[in-house]
């Protein structure tokens, strides 16, 4: 009804009203525009002379001074990332007549790569013609000298000093510290106006690792100087300076001696080794092998180098410690045992008969022990010592997958540890919910059984394994793994320590539970019969540990594998080892994962031992004697799933998939 009236109400009166309003509005607008014009008359005619004078004298303008980036040290003050003065060639396009000709002639004086020229041309297109654009970074002294002699031939080309980043230890710390590289347009797009203002004059930004995570701490704030320029815009003199605020120096919890020892012990075998102080979560060593030289990235990596790194089959850019996922194998057994005690499902003295085969009651399916004929009657401590599968098959079955998943979750599996690095992955903690999320099939009891020995869907990062080991070693009190130890405002300022509060209450219910599992892990190494025997010989403290050997592929036959050739086995197995010491009062926890190793104890165990040896030295003790040569252990808890078991999931069966770069 109302609408109808509306269409009729189109009265002359309303049209006339609108016309009056439109005319009045236009009159007001003309008035407004006139007012603006009057202001321009005021500036451009009445005060013209004054502003011309100011424009002519306008030789002073502010120029940003980039802050010096904070330095990075290890816990003992060993320099890990440094700023070194360098020189670059800068070209002001406006002052260059024939660019191609100039580049050709300049190339004869200072070598220019195709990459340099391509990057430079791209920036010339994007930049302003009167701004200097970097052509070559990091000139050698020889090049500077040769250019200086020929400088008169190249108007518009200058040698400009700047600070560049250097990583003195090169590849050793690459996966921890990461690197900085040139700021690009994507970086600037991500920033808001205030952030962008903070990067005026800065050429580099943290790309990965600590450099990226603590970018805000390391960067600092730019300062300004008032410079006098001539009519061509060239700097004549500096009149006044507001100094920049340098970035904070940071000290990492890493101990370079331990880091290097771990790196050497790995001897180039692909995998990861991590050491954590269980009393506070400080990461003492963080090694991912293979690694790469971060210095390559700082001043623009050449496409040949980059291609070599990204196409290398062993993926050196891939941070295995943080992003690699592996089946944990038997290393989960002590954690499962502690779960059995905590949940009240087992007492330490409860025994299980291991006959070499465990069958689900009422089903024909069976799961093997690694030793033909089994280990006989074992209690919890013996089961950990000998890595008796049957004991843990039964325990997992009694616990059920729901309780198992929730207990293992409380030790940090299946979620990010929260370390101060970018790009951590969650891995897979097998659970009903997780499986529902990826397939319609329900949960099978057989899957619970193999979860009990760390096989099946399980996928953990070396960092998660180290974190869980440290949590146990620290009597169940979890600490988030942390790399930043102290910050410092300047070289002469005091170091400001970070706080390391526990991230939650202890997961251990009673000291007796902990003692029982600890006893089993001590026995692994020290009883003379455990899977890791000999690893403790000559060491001044008691070591507790656990080996793990996980299968990369599921077995095709039910038969025991008779091929004992270690090279052959290494292609099929991942070797893991966790350890901590001193067993009665743990001060360091270690996890070692080898992507290809025949046996956990035999391949990864000695690496863990070498890390602990170095730790003893760092603590001020004498270097422990080498354990006697010879096999550490004959067989490990060889995972045993029978042939009709559902195929191991892709996550456990394939080498880690990643696009190589850790972004």
């Amino acid at each position: 009804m109302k609408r109808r009236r509306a269409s009729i109400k189109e009265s002359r009166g309303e049209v006339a009203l609108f016309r009056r309003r439109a005319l009045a509005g236009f009159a007001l607008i003309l008035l407004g525009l006139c007012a603006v014009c009057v202001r321009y008359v005021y500036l451009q005619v009445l005060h013209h002379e004054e502003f011309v004078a100011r424009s002519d004298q306008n030789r002073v303008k502010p120029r940003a001074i980039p802050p010096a980036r904070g330095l990075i040290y290890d816990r003992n003050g060993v320099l890990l990332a440094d700023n070194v003065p360098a020189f670059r060639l800068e070209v002001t396009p406006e002052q260059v007549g024939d660019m191609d000709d100039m580049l050709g002639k300049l190339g004869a004086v200072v070598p220019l790569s195709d990459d340099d020229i391509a990057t430079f041309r791209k920036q010339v297109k994007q930049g302003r013609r009167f701004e200097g654009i970097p052509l070559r970074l990091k000139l050698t002294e020889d090049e500077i000298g040769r250019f200086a002699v020929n400088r008169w031939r190249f108007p518009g080309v200058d040698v400009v000093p700047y600070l560049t980043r250097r990583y003195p230890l090169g590849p050793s710390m690459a996966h921890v510290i990461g690197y900085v590289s040139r700021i690009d347009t994507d970086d600037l797009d991500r920033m808001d106006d205030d952030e962008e203002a903070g990067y005026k004059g800065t050429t580099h930004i943290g790309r990965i690792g600590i450099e990226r995570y603590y970018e805000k701490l390391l960067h600092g704030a730019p300062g300004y100087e008032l410079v006098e320029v001539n009519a061509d815009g060239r700097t004549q003199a500096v009149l006044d300076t507001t100094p920049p605020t340098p970035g904070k120096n940071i000290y990492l919890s890493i101990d370079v001696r331990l880091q290097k020892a771990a790196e050497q012990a790995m001897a180039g075998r692909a995998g990861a080794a991590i050491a954590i102080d269980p009393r506070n979560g400080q990461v003492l060593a963080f090694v991912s092998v293979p690694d790469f030289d971060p210095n390559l990235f700082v001043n623009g990596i050449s496409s040949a180098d980059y291609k070599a790194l990204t196409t290398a089959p062993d993926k050196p850019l891939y941070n295995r410690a943080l992003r690699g996922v592996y089946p944990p194998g038997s290393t989960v057994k002590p954690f499962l045992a502690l779960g059995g005690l905590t949940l009240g499902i087992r007492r330490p003295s409860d025994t299980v008969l291991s006959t070499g085969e465990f069958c689900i009651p009422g089903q024909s399916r069976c799961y093997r022990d690694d030793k033909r004929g089994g280990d006989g009657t074992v209690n919890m401590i013996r089961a950990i010592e000998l890595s008796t599968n049957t004991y843990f098959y039964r325990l997992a079955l009694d616990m059920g997958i729901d309780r198992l998943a929730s207990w293992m979750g409380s030790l940090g599996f299946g979620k990010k540890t929260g370390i101060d690095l970018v790009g951590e992955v969650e891995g897979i903690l097998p659970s009903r919910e997780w499986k529902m999320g990826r397939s319609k099939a329900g949960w099978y009891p057989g899957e619970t059984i193999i979860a009990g020995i760390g096989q099946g869907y399980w996928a953990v990062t070396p960092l998660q394994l180290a974190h869980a080991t440290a949590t146990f070693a620290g009597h169940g009190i979890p600490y988030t793994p942390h790399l930043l130890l102290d910050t410092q405002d300047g070289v002469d300022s005091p170091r400001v320590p970070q706080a390391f509060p526990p991230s939650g209450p202890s997961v251990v219910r009673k000291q007796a539970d902990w003692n029982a599992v600890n006893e089993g892990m001590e026995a692994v190494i020290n009883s003379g019969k455990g899977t890791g025997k000999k690893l403790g010989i000559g060491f001044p403290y008691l070591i507790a540990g656990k080996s793990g050997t996980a299968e990369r592929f599921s077995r095709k036959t039910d038969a025991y594998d008779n091929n004992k050739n270690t090279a052959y086995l290494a292609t099929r197995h991942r070797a893991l080892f966790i350890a901590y010491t001193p067993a009665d009062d743990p001060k360091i926890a270690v996890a070692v994962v080898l992507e290809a190793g025949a046996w956990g104890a035999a391949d990864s165990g000695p690496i863990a031992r070498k890390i602990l040896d170095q730790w003893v030295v760092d603590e001020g003790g004498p270097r422990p004697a080498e354990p006697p040569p010879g096999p550490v252990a004959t067989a490990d808890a060889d995972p045993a799933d029978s042939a009709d078991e559902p195929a191991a999931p892709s996550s456990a069966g394939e080498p880690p998939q990643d696009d190589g770069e850790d972004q």
Partner: protein
Amino acid sequence: MFPQFTARMKRFGLRLLTKPRLDLPLLLALFVLAIVGLCNLYSAGGDNVSLVTGQAARFVLGGVLLLVISRIPPPVLRSWTPWLYLGSTALLVVVAILGEGRGAYRWLDLGVMRFQPSELLKLTMPMMVAWYLHPRQLPPGWKDIAVVGLLIAVPAGLIAEQPDLGTALLVAGAGAFALFLSGMAWWRIGLLGGAVGAVIPVAWQFLHEYQRNRVRTLLDPESDPLGKGWHIIQSKIAVGSGGTFGKGWQHGSQSRLEFLPEHTTDFAFAVFSEEFGLVGVILIMLLYAFIIGRCLWIAMNARDTYSRLLAGAIGMSFFVYVAVNGGMVAGILPVVGVPMPLLSYGGTSAVSLLTGFGVLMSIHANRKLHD
């Protein structure tokens, strides 16, 4: 179904090209303005060709949108209006949620391009007010004024929160002009104006610190020559040193020696004033006045209330751009980030402006056949 659809689209495209029912004087004025804008940008950007081609590409995109929208009859636009308004306001809310705790946040990333939902409101706001007032008895009473006030306040408030005071001003202005054109009584305008004046001291409390600083700097720019006042001082020097006839194209030393910050975007008009002087400024102002006048003329001849109010409001809000940016460059208004239409570099603003003119063309094409 599908062949029919393509045939229809073909016919539509054909009509677009063969019978563009456009207002030629307005189109010509916009074309001249765009050319001046590109030339100015070439000089302001330091002879940077890619900047100019980028802006030209946006003009082309805006031109295509103008053509397409000019073919949509106003009644269709009117029936879409509430949905367009609600949709664009909803996008503002999305941005507000996404931007939680991220500082100045205005963009929505669509993968291929990013755009500011607040730009949409520049058009949907006057559309909504016109849609609301269209069936009502005019001039509006207090109740309708209150409803319109609410329609304006919600999106404008969201935009001001982003914080983007300049766009908030443009959006609120566009809505207010529609109300003004609907014949809101002068005494009511006076009363409301007085009330707003009384609220300003309260509003001051809600401004962000950086916005307050901008106002403070405006009152005394020389007090902070390194920071906030730098823009204004340098802009005034650029304008003043241009004189009556200017320094000539590509000879503006202020911008070319980089004394003038943001000389391709917000302060593009300072470059223009420096290089073309007062004569150039007055010519451009006349061109702007002509465009606004032509818009109002189209509005007066429009077929119904909705078209009249919408066309008039779009034309008048053009004035806000010119006056705020012109005043800012000359140092009499705060630096709030309003571009000079078609002169400043910036994609979304050029595209949304030309889209608005597409609506005007459509209203022109469907004008009243004379009394």
